[in-house]
């Protein structure tokens, strides 16, 4: 969206506007325009906005106007076609820059020099051209690395609620993620949609602190035109695909907040008077989200990867709301933040019990992390699940009513939250995370640790009190 493709833009004709409704206009005389193509909307007062064709009906075109329709009038506005689909510049020159939701500089810096232009919608990756994601990515967060391991090429959402520190977690992961077995650096494309100015300032600080040499920040603010939000993730992913699959880098794309994106989608759908689906969201929301999320992955024969972390705010903490629900059906697992943990000061407040990384098995084990990783993760998970169950029971029967065995699990759950989950600002390597996990298991007698093999126990377990 930054500059025209080639030197002379291909501009044809003037059209008249017949209807204006919310972010949409209907223009006549649109012969020769293609479905999904970009048009220029000239309001006559020197402001030229961009728009995209949503529907074609003979000579009528329904156009969604990026930049909003304020100031658009029937007689004063003309529409020009440019004969091309929405595209964006891509390349390394965008590193260190802050862009708006459509990929234009927002930081008063010079116009970036793109290496190429790409259509923002991309094309579906042929399933047989994909390589299965099986390489470990170290985020430095124990709950993720140890129990919900992220793999290069995976798409993993963070389900959060209003007021929970999801953005802080995302920014931290973006700043400190490494590929330990690979000298290739991890670069970050950060797409913020519908964020407040306060959040935007936070992201800017986070990124400039990191010298921002290898990151691109796209900011679509909450009071920017809603409709631009539909392009933000597409621009970000198009830039990321170029970096990952052509420049062979490891790219981490962070998208926040998908809920703002989906609301924009709903707004357009309502303006088009489409049949609403669940909670008013359009019936094609699954397909639309899939067209974003499925752009994560690895390509066979290439060394780059595109990993996605997306933040999904659950309205009223409801995981069955259509946005987290459809997201969960597309992504490869989910990280769920917990209000209870946040209240007790655990940072990051990741609730590992409902969280899951579907690709974890492929990315861990001997040669990747360590041979005991799977067993250790299962054991920690199972002990913590039992500890939480005991805690629930305790609230009914009281602590004194618990057998000694149960009290051990109770103590474990608290220690696990206080040391393993809560790590403040420290970054932990995978070795440190695994070591911490083992130390937490020390109080248990070996026969109770049924998920671990005898070899692993012999090597790592420091015998606790006898049973």
């Amino acid at each position, binding site marked *: 969206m930054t500059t025209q493709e080639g030197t002379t833009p291909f501009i044809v004709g003037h059209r008249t506007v017949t209807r204006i409704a919310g972010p949409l206009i209907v223009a006549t005389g*649109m012969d*020769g*325009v*293609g*479905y*999904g*193509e970009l048009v220029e909307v000239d309001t006559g007062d020197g402001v030229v906005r961009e728009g995209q064709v*949503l*529907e*074609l009906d*003979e000579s009528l075109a329904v156009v969604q106007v990026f930049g909003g329709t304020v100031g658009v009038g029937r007689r004063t506005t003309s529409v020009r076609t440019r004969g091309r*689909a929405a595209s964006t510049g891509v390349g390394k020159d965008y590193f260190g820059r802050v862009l708006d939701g459509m990929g234009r500089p927002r930081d008063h810096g010079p116009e970036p020099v793109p290496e190429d232009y790409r*259509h923002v*919608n991309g*094309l*579906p*990756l*042929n*399933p*047989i*051209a*994909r*390589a*299965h994601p099986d390489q470990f990515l170290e985020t430095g967060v124990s709950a993720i690395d140890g129990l919900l391991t992220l793999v290069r*090429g995976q798409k993993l959402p963070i389900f959060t609620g209003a007021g929970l520190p999801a953005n802080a977690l995302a920014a931290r992961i973006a700043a400190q993620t490494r590929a330990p077995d690979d000298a290739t650096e991890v670069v970050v494309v950060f797409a913020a949609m519908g964020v407040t100015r306060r959040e935007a300032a936070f992201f800017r600080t986070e990124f400039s602190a990191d010298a921002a040499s290898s990151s691109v920040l796209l900011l679509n603010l909450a009071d920017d035109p809603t409709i631009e939000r539909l392009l933000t993730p597409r621009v970000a992913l198009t830039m990321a695909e170029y970096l990952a699959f052509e420049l062979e880098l490891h790219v981490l794309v962070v998208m926040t907040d998908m809920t703002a994106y989906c609301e924009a989608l709903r707004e357009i759908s309502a303006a088009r008077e*489409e*049949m*609403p*689906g*669940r909670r008013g969201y*359009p*019936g*094609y929301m*699954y*397909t639309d989200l*899939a*067209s974003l999320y*499925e*752009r*994560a*992955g690895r390509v*066979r024969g290439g060394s780059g990867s595109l990993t996605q972390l997306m933040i999904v705010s659950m309205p009223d903490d409801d995981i*069955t709301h*259509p946005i987290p*629900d*459809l997201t*969960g*059906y*597309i992504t*490869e697992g*989910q990280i769920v933040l917990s209000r209870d943990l946040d209240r007790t000061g655990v940072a990051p407040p990741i609730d590992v019990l409902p969280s899951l990384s*579907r*690709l974890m*098995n*492929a990315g861990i084990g001997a040669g990747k992390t360590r041979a005991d990783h799977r067993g250790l993760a*299962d054991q920690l998970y*199972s002990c913590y*699940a039992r500890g939480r169950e005991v805690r629930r029971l305790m609230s009914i*029967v009281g602590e004194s009513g618990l057998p000694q065995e149960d009290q051990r699990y109770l103590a474990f759950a608290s220690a696990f939250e206080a040391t393993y989950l809560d790590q403040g600002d420290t970054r932990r390597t995978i070795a440190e995370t695994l070591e911490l996990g083992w130390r937490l298991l020390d109080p248990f007698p070996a026969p109770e640790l*049924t998920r671990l093999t005898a070899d692993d126990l012999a090597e790592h377990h420091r015998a606790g009190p006898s049973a």
Partner: protein
Amino acid sequence: MTGQVPSDTGGVVKVSGPVVTAAGLPRTRLFDVVRIGTDRILGEVIRIDDDLVVVQAFEDTTGLRVDEPVVATGEPLYAELGPGLLGAILDGTQRPLESLGAESGHYIARGADPPRLDPDRLWDFQAAAAVGNEVTPGDLLGTVTEGRAFEHRVLVPTGWSGTVTAVRPGPATVLDPVVDIDGHPVTMMHRWPLRRARPVAGRLPLTVPLNTGQRVLDLLFPVARGGSAIIPGGFGTGKTVMEQALAKFSSADVVVYVGCGERGNELTEVLEQFPRLTDPRNGASLMERTVMVANTSNMPVAAREASIYTGITVAEYFRDQGYDVAMLADSTSRWGEALREVSSRLEEMPAEDGYPAYLATRLAGFYERAGAVQCLGTPERNGSVTIVGAVSPAGGDFSEPITQHSLRLAGCFWALDTTLSRQRHFPAVNWLRSFSQYDLDGWYDCEVADDWSRLRRWAAATLQDEGSLQEVVSLLGVEAIAAEQRITLRLGQALREDLLQQSSFDPADATCPPDRLLAMLRVLHAADGAMSSALSRGVAVPDIVGASVLTELGQMRRWPAGRVDDSARDLTRRVAEEMELL
């Protein structure tokens, strides 16, 4: 065969996502295929309104302009059937993904139209028919060997009959005539319209199970060959892992796996895994009995709708050769959503949740293509298509339309449960909620062991009792129930943890043949007897349910294949002994 309609050329009038309206195609019929625009995008007519023809496009329509040409082919959407299907990976309209990759690289470009079956590959045709034979549809003309061991049977296509006038055994491509009937050449490839069920001589009762290798299914909720089952479950409950386990281990001759609107990375996993896995029955690669139809969630939505029909047509084609076919669809909800998306673009009146009112009819049309049949033609043979459809209910709520309509059509309901999956109980099949309407006890009692149905009822009843007791215990504590009930509780735990749970990732446990399942079941049943007799001798309940030998029940799933009977005998004896000593 059918009356050929000369092709028409019209023009695009309207474009809205995957729905394109064209004018100037007066002879076009419903469900005819058209080619849209200069890129020749594949589309299918879904509505005719006076002079206007509404088309669903199987490819992305971005850039399409009003007045671009639309060419009618006068034919419905066909599958091309013949040797070369096994091991193939196809998109929703049967385009081989390998060929698409060769044509357009990593990404799928528009308008690609590669041959559905490799036209150059030579197959060694072994004739079965001889000159002078009178043949009718379904009669065996000859065979070719696919992969290591699969006998691909070439049959007289529907619509053909007469006298065989020439037979040409030896190497041939799918397009070479191998047999002449009344002087007309017949090739190994023939075409079949996707949306029409293939004819059969008759339907057979469903009496033989499709063994899935999953204990909870084979024991409690078995599906018959020719039956249908649905697997509904919220995200993360293991639908895909279960479909993949069925693709790997079920006792079918041919598996058609339709990845409909699902994750690309998952498909890659299957594509990387299957060629390395071997079919336990003949040692060949699993891929040699598998046809994959892959339309991932970011591929065009209308092709997702077609992918289910491509899959079932291929399945019926192998059924007609006399094989037992498993058709696995993951996920039928994505297919329903594709219907909804197109319907909404057509501005049709929606029924429940925005789905079109014909959703139930379409689902019925699909599930009713399952069946055990007597195939057309000679030699006499039987075949079956078993459908297993995953359902992804919105919010994990089973009251939504696709789950409810499918429930009425499918004979098995394998309900996956979020609570179980959070407890990492896999497969997360809820044993209290699921059901099977197929009565297969007769087969098991006859083919596996005559106490099968008795043991099955015992296991089901124990689980049921345990479920009710758990409710009491969670309210009042374990002290509130009687001694015998605490034994039931312990047995229920053993059934759940040591029998129903099964790890798809543990090579020793990923599949379980019926004889091993029987052995495990007998050990547990014997443990029931031993515990009850200990109780009647006055042994304290905590000593019985806490006996250390009971923890060894967890090892049953890892018994080495050749030593199942010995291990079972040994464990039964030791359980009895330890209970005696208490």
